[in-house]
């Protein structure tokens, strides 16, 4: 009997030894658009590939993009890259799924109408065969390193990886993701490697803030499709620009005086030494012309205060009202 008791005690002690650190990630996190506001808010300017390490093929494909292209039914879900949420203007909801013993089997990041729900498997299952199905969420596994959840996503679909500008990611992309929660702040860093459309890993890091009263809005993790431009229906026409004929290819050069190679996403323009080139060529625009004070607009606070030149980009009245309504 004594021996049986000892056996039970030993088992309990061994079971109770923590295998690794885990942080509670569950909850809703409010977005803080203090970085890449234009990409995440109104959407990228056409022809703005700044900050991207695109390959020639990636650049060519992005320049073929027309903003009417997402209106074709076959392409309306191309925005569903699993980690494109880092370029979207929405809050984040995370919850855990458990097995019968209460152990976390997966952390789940809720989707929205243009981003599939991402499930991060924590139970040690392997990634499927390279030939397995590629869902729009990809396939993601994770483990803890201290307070950081390290995840790896494979099996993604070909997608657009930055909002509204046609920058492509191939189905050979993989993502390494680091998620660290400290008190109320959640930092997510994604490192995307793509042998087709990138020349080096594309790194994005963002911050969200825990918000117990937050709401992500309707959870719709299936991309809805529908005819948005009736004249395109049944015509077989695919909106596009032929090589060399994208009228927005020089938008950033014309508007912000930046070199074309920077606007076109060459990797060497991402590093400090590129400023040597910029120093001799860049002349700042005389004034800020569009989306100059976006954060303030979205909070419903005074944008262009009397006597100040803060320019809201001439938002349509209906959109301005929607962005600044008290319910928002």
């Amino acid at each position, binding site marked *: 009997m004594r021996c049986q008791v000892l056996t039970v005690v030993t088992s309990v002690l061994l079971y109770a030894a923590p295998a690794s650190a885990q942080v509670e990630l569950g909850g809703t996190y409010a977005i803080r658009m203090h970085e890449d506001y234009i990409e995440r808010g109104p959407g990228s300017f056409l022809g703005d590939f700044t900050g991207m390490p695109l390959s020639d093929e990636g650049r060519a494909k992005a320049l073929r993009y027309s903003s009417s292209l997402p209106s074709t039914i076959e392409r309306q879900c191309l925005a569903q890259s699993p980690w494109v949420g880092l370029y979207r203007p929405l809050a984040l909801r995370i919850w855990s799924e458990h097995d019968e013993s209460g152990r976390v089997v997966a952390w789940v990041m809720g989707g929205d109408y243009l981003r599939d729900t991402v499930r991060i498997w924590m139970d040690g299952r392997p990634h499927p065969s390279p030939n397995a199905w590629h869902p729009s969420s990809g396939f993601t596994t994770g483990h803890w390193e201290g307070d950081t959840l390290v995840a790896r996503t494979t099996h993604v679909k070909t997608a657009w990886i930055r909002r509204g500008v046609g920058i492509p990611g191939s189905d050979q992309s993989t993502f390494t993701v680091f998620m660290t929660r400290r008190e109320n702040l959640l930092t997510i860093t994604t490192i995307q490697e793509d042998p087709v459309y990138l020349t080096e890993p594309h790194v994005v890091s963002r911050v969200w803030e825990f918000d117990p009263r937050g709401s992500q809005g309707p959870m719709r993790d299936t991309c809805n499709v529908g005819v948005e431009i009736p004249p395109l229906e049944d015509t077989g026409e695919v909106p596009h620009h032929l090589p060399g004929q994208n009228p927005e290819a020089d938008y950033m050069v014309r508007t912000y005086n930046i070199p074309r190679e920077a606007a076109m996403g060459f990797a060497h323009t991402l590093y400090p030494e590129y400023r040597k080139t910029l120093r001799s060529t860049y002349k*700042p625009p005389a004034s800020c012309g569009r989306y100059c004070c976006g*954060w303030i607009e979205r909070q419903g606070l005074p944008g262009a205060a009397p006597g100040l*030149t803060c320019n809201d980009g001439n938002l349509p009245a209906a959109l301005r009202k929607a962005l600044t309504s008290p319910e928002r």
Partner: protein
Amino acid sequence: MDCRSLAIAIAVISLLPVSAGAQPRGARASTGSARAEAPIDLTGQWVAIISEDWRWRMITPPKGDIVSIPLSLRGQQAAEAWDPAKDEAAGEQCKAYGAPGLMRGPIRMRISWQDDATLKVETDYGIQTRILRFPSTALRAGGTTAASAARSWQGHTSAEWVVRGGGRDSQRHGSLKTVTTNLRQGYLRKNGVPYSERAVFTEHWDVHVLPSGDKYLVNTNVVEDPVYLQAPFQTAIHYKLERDTSKWDPTPCDARF
């Protein structure tokens, strides 16, 4: 296993150190030097990858471009009044190179141990030096406090390790937390978007390693300023470790470019 062996096993288990995984949040090791206790290695040359906000970080945006920064009305007015010629005349070309602006700049930084309780962060951009002081440094210096020191572009930074794991069955992990105060008034953005001398700059430094061995440093930071901000300014900035240090290029502060 007989009962005697089992009893010995229980005794051994009970004497093992408690896993650091059970430490309270923010637990800090209490023995040894900060250098010896470091759960991560921050030393080396790191380069900022400007894959975000390129147009606001690589070049000086036009006056009045304050998008994405939660300025108060007073902050907006100050940004509108930006005059680089005035800064140059006042010898304040480095206003955009104070810690909250510097870290978001197009920088290379070299991090090294100045002594066992002090990390030194040098940048080529603006030729600035930040000193991150772990507690014992201040004590060794005779109890110098932030409040008694002169304000500077880099202010006074206190540092502490946040350690996780390291006990039985648990690998040691962690991050660095720093808090900077006593700053001179400066710019969050090169085009005169301001922070005041009352700003508090809190940073969390994480090192992430890819299977390839590439190392990334992610600096999650918050600027709180009751004068020029109406909400905390929260960003995460990433850098990559460079093995080739030949691109280090010290350049002085420049109020315009």
